[in-house]
């Protein structure tokens, strides 16, 4: 029985806007097992993106996480609640243990820095010691082969200091003096090697050329690969993918999905894949969670959810996928405004089988079959 890598319990998220308090997430419960790809499906406004952001504790104001737990299981079964951590701890975790890739690669990349620069940033933040060590090995090699002079020995001293205390003041001063800051060049070389390696892993044909390109010079697919490179640079345990292929062409989408599948096997990360496209879910995910209006309404195996959807919303969602020859079925009504969400089950006014209790009491998530959880009064009876 695989253990849970990520556990979200009772997450409540509210946005305090001018028009009122938007109850974006209402007691969201989610489990992500180690090594699996969990798909998070839902329409616009259901809260799937903010769930992903909440996992990284990156919700923008005016949003505020009211209550709940986001428990990450690090190595050796150490569990930490991310919502209770300090900013410094979170900064170490983000990018290293968990990372995120976003929907629009062009806006996820900073347009004034090259791709190589941005991947290097991830390495410099999280893997500084290892890179310094590698640079140090290079320096030692050249000293041993008598190729270096006084400056090289100074570089060794500087790199040693950097390993011990990257924030020391003397390093700051040294880094500004022209000849003495050559150690930075060695470091940059190591970083560049790592970045090129990452890009090559992303199946980019000519990584040395791409590394010096700016985001606007790249096509959508390439830019998305660069973003994925940034996300996987430090081999995180959890990768959160927020609709990474929605803006891409269909053939490029296939390339990226294949890439994600291969990388997952190679790196062994777990993926939380957020999307609204059921086809991609069927391609990529092992388990599926369906969200509606800030609630997780159904969680099940991917085969199970397509064969036997239990929640009325899931059923309606699968039926509304356009199929040739059949008439188009849509879901009646519109998504309720989350400023004054309907009482009880939030789907009750659009549900064809709603009964009295649905209007009053919010249903609990019940395990109806093995591994198949539904939040619905009718089904849990």
């Amino acid at each position: 029985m695989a253990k849970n890598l990520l556990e979200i319990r009772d997450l409540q998220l509210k946005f305090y806007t001018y028009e009122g308090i938007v109850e974006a997430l209402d007691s969201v419960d989610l489990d992500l097992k180690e090594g699996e790809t969990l798909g998070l499906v839902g329409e616009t406004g259901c809260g799937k993106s903010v769930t992903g952001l909440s996992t990284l504790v990156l919700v923008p104001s005016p949003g505020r996480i009211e209550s709940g737990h986001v428990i990450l299981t690090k190595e050796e079964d150490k569990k930490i609640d991310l919502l209770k951590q300090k900013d410094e701890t979170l900064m170490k975790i983000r990018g290293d243990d968990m990372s995120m890739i976003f929907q629009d690669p062009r806006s996820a990349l900073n347009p004034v820095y090259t791709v190589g620069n941005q991947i290097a940033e991830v390495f410099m933040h999280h893997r500084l010691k290892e890179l310094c060590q590698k640079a140090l090995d290079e320096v030692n090699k050249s000293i041993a082969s008598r190729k270096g002079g006084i400056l090289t020995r100074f570089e060794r001293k500087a790199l040693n200091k950097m390993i011990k205390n990257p924030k020391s003041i003397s390093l700051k001063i040294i880094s500004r003096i022209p000849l003495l800051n050559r150690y930075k060049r060695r470091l940059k070389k190591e970083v560049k090697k790592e970045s090129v390696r990452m890009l090559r892993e992303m199946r980019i044909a000519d990584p040395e050329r791409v590394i010096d390109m700016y985001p606007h010079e790249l096509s959508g697919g390439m830019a998305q690969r660069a973003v994925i490179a940034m996300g996987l640079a430090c081999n995180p345990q959890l990768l959160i993918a927020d609709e990474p292929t929605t803006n891409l062409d269909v053939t490029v989408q296939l390339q990226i999905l294949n890439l994600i599948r291969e990388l997952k096997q190679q790196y062994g990360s777990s993926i939380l894949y957020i999307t609204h496209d059921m086809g991609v879910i069927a391609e990529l995910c092992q388990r599926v969670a369906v969200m509606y209006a800030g609630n997780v309404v159904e969680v099940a195996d991917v085969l199970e959810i397509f064969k036997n959807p239990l929640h009325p919303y899931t059923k309606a969602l699968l039926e509304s996928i356009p199929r040739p020859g059949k008439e188009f079925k849509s879901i009646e009504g519109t998504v309720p405004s989350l400023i004054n969400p309907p009482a009880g089950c939030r789907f009750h006014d659009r549900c064809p089988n709603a009964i009295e209790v649905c209007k009053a009491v919010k249903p609990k998530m019940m395990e109806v079959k093995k591994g198949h959880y539904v939040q619905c009064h009718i089904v849990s009876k």
Partner: protein
Amino acid sequence: MSAIIETVALKKYYPVLGGIFRRRVADVKAVDNVNFTVYRGECFGLVGESGCGKTTLGKTIIRLLQPNAGHIYFDVPEDVQEEIKKEQGNPKSEAYGRLLRKYDIATFRKGKLQQLRRKMQIVYQDPTTSLNPRMLVKDIIAEPLNVQGIAKGSEARRRVVEVLEKVGLTERHLYRYPHEFSGGQRQRIAVARALVSNPEFVVLDEPTSSVDVSVRAQLLNLFQDLQKDLHLTYLFVSHDLSVVECISDRVAVMYLGKIVELAPTMELYNRPMHPYAVALFASIPIPDPTVKRERVVLAGEVPSPINPPAGCRFHPRCSKVMQICSKQEPKLMDIGNGHFVACHLYTQ
């Protein structure tokens, strides 16, 4: 079936300015030598990836853009079509020139173009940006009536309410701003604006791309109902292949400014012939985890339309490339059943 739109050798290039004096140094060949016909009353799907020129083609056909070369014939009666085909032999003749000036909308200028606008309309992709955020809904929809002098005052108002009800909104929605509506409702307002002047031909430029899956079905139902009620002809431009499959009668696949395959929908989706079309249809994700499809992964990226590859534009990425493909451009040939392909594999 009578043809409502017929394009002959249609070209639309965007100039690339460069150099000190910003001269035209190159052209983005967005639409390059496109020939096809849309029949009255059908829904014609136009698919392709980004940068293939499908949106440009749609906008050029309704003369929102000025074509660089080629002819577009709109609603030309059968006998005149015969005449034009006859006269094509001697393009410098007086009769040919006269016919062109009368029927070829690529030559139309201000006055005749204004009259044309009544009959051809467009619905844009993103309803948030295609509706003026500072105009009330009633003004947005009444604008075509005012500008083209179709109706004024209370008559205009009556027609606006009429068309609003056709798209599923009510009179209450007249006095509101677009941002007060949801995405699906805004798209309906855009459709209402397109339909208020009673057009015959409507270009739908990715109308369901920016709306949710559940709203998509509502919009598609709306399009089908309106087509039946008002006898419209659609040009449905989209990159979403599954949506096009459901709503179109015939579909054309575009690549780098050229149509590479054209066929009735069922025929095309079941038996795609052009290697690009094959790869394209094979990459649609299927919402059914039990189906294992053969995945043809198309390597590489779409080349730039400024310098398209010589010969067949797809040949650098084609898995079945032959010698002739890099030298000669294949023409769109009829291989029976109304199925046209532009590929040397089938034109031996």
